[in-house]
């Protein structure tokens, strides 16, 4: 499969001309400078058989995850591994199996063909909507103010830091905007939103998305471990995980490892950050149109843009919380809790599908492809985000009650 880039316009090339925006009506260019034909584009599209094959693989690995999660503690009971096996949560099995599947597909040269079925975002967003059913509306209301304050502080500070350090490293302004949005808001979704706002090149978006996924994976395990080491409260842990980890899927994985209360708060904090994508996208659109590129035909973006870019699954999460809270109030907790537990089981299933997909779509090669400067900038921004997120969460969620 051929990919698209123009010679000399890689993401770590400073000073890319601003008039080098891709023309959506023109055929894409290949690495050797030739135009890709419609036939070549069509050949890249996944076939239905490949999508079905990929889905079967994801579901099979998810079923294996469930099997291992339930049986490994039984098999190892009474052995030196018994204690460890009991503490291993399902995200660990799911991601590990996804990575193993990834390696196998790579060896068989099948990974790219089946990749269309690895729908991490769709699975995790569906899971997050279902998660809303187990989060009482009062928790969302009480967490809203500190969550909004943390989101505003983190997005501003991390975005500006990443923008600044990207400039010091000589990155192209558009790539700086993509990386800054990805680290400070919500990973791939934010990078996509920013790419539209600043009219970034498709390869810049691909680099940013790759870096997000590569950096998110270790943070899934690092943050719960560090939170335990630092003896953080569940509320601070949740706020730190939700504010710090870039992608919603990785937040859910880390939260699931840290505990049910942590997962609920981490999701509320992450959803708050997600909701601010539109505001940042509008600011970027205006900044690039009027300040960076000074386009004579530039028009101020409308407020409707905020709604257009708003992550709609956040509304689903809120709606599920409202529906479940009203339902429990009407039928009582004795009758309602077992029913909500079924929704929780469904949510876990979607989370497992998402975590398996995280492992399947992981590409360490992306680090090499990106060149050292974007990787260095992303690493520095992630470290800054880690420290700033901990500081804000510790102050804003100190003494916050989760139950």
């Amino acid at each position, binding site marked *: 499969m051929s990919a698209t*880039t123009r010679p000399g316009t890689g993401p770590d090339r400073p000073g890319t001309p601003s008039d080098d925006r891709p023309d959506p009506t023109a055929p894409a260019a290949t690495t050797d400078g030739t135009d890709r034909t419609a036939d070549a584009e069509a050949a890249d599209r996944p076939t239905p058989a490949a999508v079905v094959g990929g889905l079967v693989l994801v579901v099979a690995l998810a079923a294996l995850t469930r099997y291992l999660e339930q049986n490994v503690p039984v098999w190892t009971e009474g052995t030196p591994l018994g204690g460890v096996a009991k503490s291993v949560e399902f995200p660990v099995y799911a991601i590990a199996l996804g990575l193993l599947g990834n390696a196998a597909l790579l060896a068989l040269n099948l990974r790219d063909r089946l990749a269309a079925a690895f729908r991490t*975002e769709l699975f995790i967003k569906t899971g997050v909507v279902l998660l809303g059913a187990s989060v009482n509306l009062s928790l969302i209301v009480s967490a809203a103010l500190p969550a909004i304050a943390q989101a505003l502080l983190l997005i501003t500070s991390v975005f500006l830091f990443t923008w600044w350090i990207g400039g010091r490293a000589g990155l192209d302004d558009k790539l700086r905007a993509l990386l800054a949005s990805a680290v400070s808001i919500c990973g791939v979704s934010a990078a996509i939103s920013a790419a539209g706002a600043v009219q970034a090149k498709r390869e810049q*978006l*691909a680099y940013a998305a790759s870096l997000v996924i590569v950096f998110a994976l270790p943070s899934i395990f690092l943050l719960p471990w560090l939170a335990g080491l630092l003896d953080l409260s569940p509320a601070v842990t949740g706020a730190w995980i939700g504010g710090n980890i870039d992608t919603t899927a990785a937040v859910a994985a880390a939260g699931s490892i840290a505990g049910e209360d942590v997962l609920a708060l981490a999701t509320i904090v992450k959803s708050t950050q997600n909701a601010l994508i539109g505001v940042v996208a509008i600011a970027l659109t205006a900044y690039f149109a009027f300040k960076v590129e000074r386009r004579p035909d530039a028009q101020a973006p409308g407020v409707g843009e905020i709604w257009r870019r708003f992550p709609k699954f956040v509304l689903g999460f809120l*709606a599920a919380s409202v529906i479940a809270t009203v339902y429990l109030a009407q039928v009582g907790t004795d009758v309602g809790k077992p029913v909500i537990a079924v929704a929780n089981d469904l949510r876990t299933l979607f989370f497992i599908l998402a975590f398996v997909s995280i492992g399947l779509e992981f590409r360490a090669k992306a680090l090499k492809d990106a060149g050292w400067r974007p990787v260095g900038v992303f690493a520095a921004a992630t470290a800054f985000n880690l420290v700033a997120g901990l500081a804000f969460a510790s102050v804003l969620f100190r003494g916050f009650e989760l139950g």
Partner: protein
Amino acid sequence: MATPHTPSPADPTGTASPEEARRFHLNEDWAATVVGLVLLGLVLTGVLGADVVP
């Protein structure tokens, strides 16, 4: 520099433009919302019970 190729949920073939990827994500947002709420509705109305969910 090597060419980027990142099949992802937003860009399965690694060749989608940012605008295509944005539209895909918005559709995915609505799809997740609808599927999630429909499943919740089925659970609350008893159509999907504990015996159905593995």
